[in-house]
């Protein structure tokens, strides 16, 4: 069964790029540009991995991950953070993310990080 990846980013171009890459590697991709209703998003889509941008309306990526980690049903889903922020490594530790992808990324790093954490 194909693995499902849920990507949050407010930039439509980035979302399109990610879809273009990931579909070449047989992933099912769902993209969203807002994270305000993250729990229902997860319930609907049932992702194997979540890729979360940090600068995203309205509540922001960090807050959205916090919500995921607070709920029993969503806690175990691996979350990878996804940002141009230089402090991404520290933030990923702080929010208990399983990994991080720094923008801009190389295609190989992107794929490797997701494949390693898809479970």
């Amino acid at each position: 069964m194909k693995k499902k990846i849920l990507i949050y980013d407010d930039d439509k171009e980035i979302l399109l790029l990610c879809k273009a890459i990931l579909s070449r590697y047989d992933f099912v991709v769902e993209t969203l540009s807002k994270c305000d209703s993250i729990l229902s998003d997860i319930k609907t889509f049932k992702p194997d991995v979540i890729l979360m941008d940090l600068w995203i309306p309205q509540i922001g990526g960090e807050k959205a991950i916090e919500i995921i980690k607070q709920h029993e049903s969503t806690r175990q889903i691996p979350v990878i953070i996804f940002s141009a922020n230089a402090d991404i490594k520290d933030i990923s530790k702080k929010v208990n993310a399983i990994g991080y992808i720094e923008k801009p990324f190389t295609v190989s790093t992107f794929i490797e990080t997701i494949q390693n954490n898809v479970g």
Partner: protein
Amino acid sequence: MDKLSSQKIEKSEAQLRSFIFQAPVAISVIIGPGFIIEIVNKKQLELWQKEEAEILHKPLFTVFPEVKSQEFERLLTEVYVTGVPFTGKEIAAQLFRNGNFETAYFDFNYQPMLNERGEVEGIIVTSYEVTQSVVAREIIEANDKRLGQERKSLHDFFTQAPAVLAILKGPEHVFEFANPAYLELTGNRDIINKTLLEALPEIAGQGFIELLDNVYKTGQTFTGKETPVVFAKGNGKTDPVFMNFTYQAFANDEGDTEGILVFAYDVSEQVNARKRIEESETAMRKMTSYLKLSTDSANVGTWSLNMQTHKVEWSALHNKMWGYDEHRTEIDYEDWHKLILPVDKEKAFEKVAEAKVNHTPYQADYYIKRANDGELRCIRSIGKYHYNAEGVAETLTGISIDITDQKKADLQLKASEEKYSELFKRMDQGFSIIEIMFDSANKPLNYLFIEANPMFEKHSGIANPVGKTIRELVPGIEERWIQIYGKVALTGEANHFIDHSEELNRWFEVYAFRLQDQGNNKVAVLFSDITEQRKIEESIKESEEQFRTFANSIQNLAWIANGEGWIYWYNQRWYDYTGLTFEEMQGWGRKKVHHPDHVENIVALSKDLWKKDEAFELTFPLRRHDGEYRWFLTHAYPVKDANGNIERWIGTNTDIQEQKTKEEQKDEFISIASHEMKTPLTTAKGYLELLLLLLSEGNQTAFLYANKANQAVERLNSLVTELLDVSKIQNGKLDYNISMFNFNEMVDEAIENIQLTTKNHSLQKIGSSVSPIKGDKHRLQQVMINLLSNAVKYSPEGEKIIVNMEEQIGNIQVSVQDSGVGMSSRHLDKIFDRYYRVQEHAVHFQGLGIGLHIAKTIIQRHEGKMWAESETGKGSIFYFTLPL
């Protein structure tokens, strides 16, 4: 009388005559009521300056007509008529000697000479001239008087300050006020608001209450001098203190007496000292009179020594002189000589021995320790040997005169003269005594210099003033000087003042006070020339004035602090800006103007900075009068004294709020812009990579182009990242991830990475480090990569790039050396500044001018140092150190 005895008499008469003639005391015998000179000895002839033949057998007052009018004729007549001897001490006689009339002083004795019937036949006159010692003593007395006045003046001078003060109110004399000196004097009791009797009960019966009552009643001032008063101080002492005091009534507006002002000073010490002096003077006088009583007329003791038997014969006076009983007859040689001080005895014996050989009289002075009281007396001994027909010395006869007083007088004169001149010479200040000349209306007209010390000329510029008036010496002297001194003389109030004389072109500090016991016209003036001081003070004042004007007119806030950072002056701008007053700003008051978030940090920072002696800069916000905080850049410069110690700090605060705002806006813009740029960069890069994946198998040319585009995007990305870092540094938000890591390995990795980007350069590493480093590995690698890529960039011709690594004490030092274009030394300080670019290179080399700024910031955050050496055309070396 048999022949033998008459011979004996004859012989003894001859001996006596010889003795009389040789005696150092003037002796003459005058006979009958006509006072015929019958016998006169050598000394007498010397004294009179006559030859024996001129005067012998002639009436005394024919020979000396000038003496007739003096007392002597009356005295001699009295002795002749009454038969009572007369002794005179230090009697002045006018003698015609050495071609002049001279005053000579004599101790003399008129001894009546009786015949067998008990009638006065003649008078033996012995006299001893004491002119020298009288004159000496007179000089001492005059000097003593002068010294006494001097002492008095100095005493007045040093006790000018009123010492003991109290205010008594009402008829019961209730203490309203007493100064500390008063309280101390009375034993620190609680006296305020008590009546005098309650407060100091012991005063009753000492007469003061009565005095106060009288002053209160009459309103007339009472002045007491050296009045003894006993205070029960509670320390058991009942010695009186001596006070000079004034009771002065003061009145209310209606003129009724309200109370009494007590103004006193404790003069006990002076009084006691004077009493001691008086006591000792009295004792001395007693002693002198006793001695006088106990000596005979001429103070001459006679003696004779038989050379064969060593038998000694002394006159009664000689006994007394030696401190033996007057009537003692058994005196032996030992009694005589044991009292003479050994040192003196030796010298005297030498003279005696010499006299014996030469057949001459001797004279020797020696000290004896008197037998009865052990007192040292100086004795002049004069004597002569008498020889028998065979020339053998048979007797030694002579006289002894006590010359102690004369000697003492000589010494005292010398000592007092020295003391007096020392006092004046030693004074550093100018000192003079002037006599004020008044007109009939008591208006001071001029003054005369009576005395001036050696320093007078140095301080006043006036040479040899004594005996001249000020108007003679300085014709244009300002009138007020004469008036000031005149006032001191008239009122007796001492005056201390600083004034200037145009005429002398000097400034003076003067202390003038009246010399009280010398009439009301003598003033002592103690003064110093302070022109230099004044000049310095004025030039300081002037330059300070200029500085202030300048400091108040500049746009910056300015201040001056002492060496410890305690600010004691602010310019007007400061007060205008802060809206605070000088009082509010005093000392550490400037804390009021700091933002609560910054104040602690600023205090801590500046505490360290004050301690260093280097100029420093700080930026922090300051509170404006309307409550708004604006950012200021503070510069502080230390001002050092000649020894290199910091005397004060001069500081300015420049308003940089606008700059700051602009910079913040710029940084924020850069931060947002660069972050925003990353998104399209990411997209472009992603698609390019996807493109590369598609192209890698087929179209070589398209692949090459896509690869180039990808590299450009990579480069663009690193520029955007740098910009982001800079804006973070500015906001203090650059994060560090501190861990222990293998530094050597990190450097190797960086070298490898950069080596991959260039084929023209060969990167070499010399040395290595074994110690791990604590720090942010990623950031430090960023530094290495920056230095290495700069080295590559600025040596376009390609060359060796050498990385040198060495461990020092507590440090590791890394340097990166290239052989490229280098730069001139004037850039070296600035290349680490933000956005700084070496102009000559800007055309040829790309960059934002922020890489080194970031690198240095990172190294500094690791408590390391970073610097560079370079030479145009020869390449550069960049160094950094990190603590181990």
